[in-house]
């Protein structure tokens, strides 16, 4: 089974899903992300799905659950780069991904995470976290 790498950048975790995940790989990613949020005291999670040409109900549920778990662990999640054909299909499938924030691309996603962090703390988050 393949494992999706998780990168840490300051107080954010970055994931770019580049393969057609089977269900176990998706569940492992969800578990790994929640673990890493706690380990690095992450405040933001960015998940890039621009390489995914299919998001079915299982992957959709994984994204929604990850966002919900992250929220409980005091981190915000942004899903970025969804292909238009995937968005059309998801809505027809009946999945609206309520509660999952989204942005067009990685750059805007990072901006969104920074804005959320600023709104919460009243100031800009430091770019890098030196202590861990």
């Amino acid at each position, binding site marked *: 089974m393949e494992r999706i790498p998780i990168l840490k950048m300051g107080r954010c975790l970055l994931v770019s899903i580049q393969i*057609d995940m*089977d269900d176990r790989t998706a569940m492992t990613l969800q578990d790994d992300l929640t673990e890493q949020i706690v380990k690095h005291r992450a405040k933001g999670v960015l998940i890039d799905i621009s390489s995914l040409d*299919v998001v079915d*109900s299982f992957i959709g*549920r994984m994204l929604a659950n990850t966002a919900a778990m992250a929220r409980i662990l005091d981190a915000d999640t942004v899903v970025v780069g969804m292909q238009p054909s995937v968005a059309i*299909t998801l809505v027809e*499938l009946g999945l609206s991904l309520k509660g999952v924030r989204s942005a067009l691309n990685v750059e805007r996603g990072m901006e969104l995470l920074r804005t959320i962090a600023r709104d919460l703390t009243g100031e800009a988050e430091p770019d890098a976290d030196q202590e861990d």
Partner: protein
Amino acid sequence: MQIRKTETLPVRNAADVVGVRQAVRKWAVELGFSLVEQTKVVTAASELGRNMIDYGGGGTMRLESLDDGIRRGLRLHFEDKGPGIPDLNAALRDGFTTGSGMGLGLGGAKRLSNEFDIKTAPGEGTHITITRWKGVS
């Protein structure tokens, strides 16, 4: 109606569902489906393949490349020898599930297809057929 090509794949585990998606994608591209048409039929196949593993004890998917003289299409047969679906109306309702999923699989797959047919009886397995035609929204 002419069946131009056919192929059968086993659907027994999570890795097979990835194989199902890849095969359906390849056939949809060969038929000249638009990107949205490809994505819809691949997503429907993914839902039905997973359902077959979760509820039918695994089974097979048969692909058929169709030509009815006017249109070209892709028909997918999902067949298992599992327990069958006792209450079909409930199973087709969004949000209904006897497992751990979201209950979108059957209804979702139906919405993503142009034609949807299901034959099931308690103890006799389930046979679901979906068809997607090129250029039909």
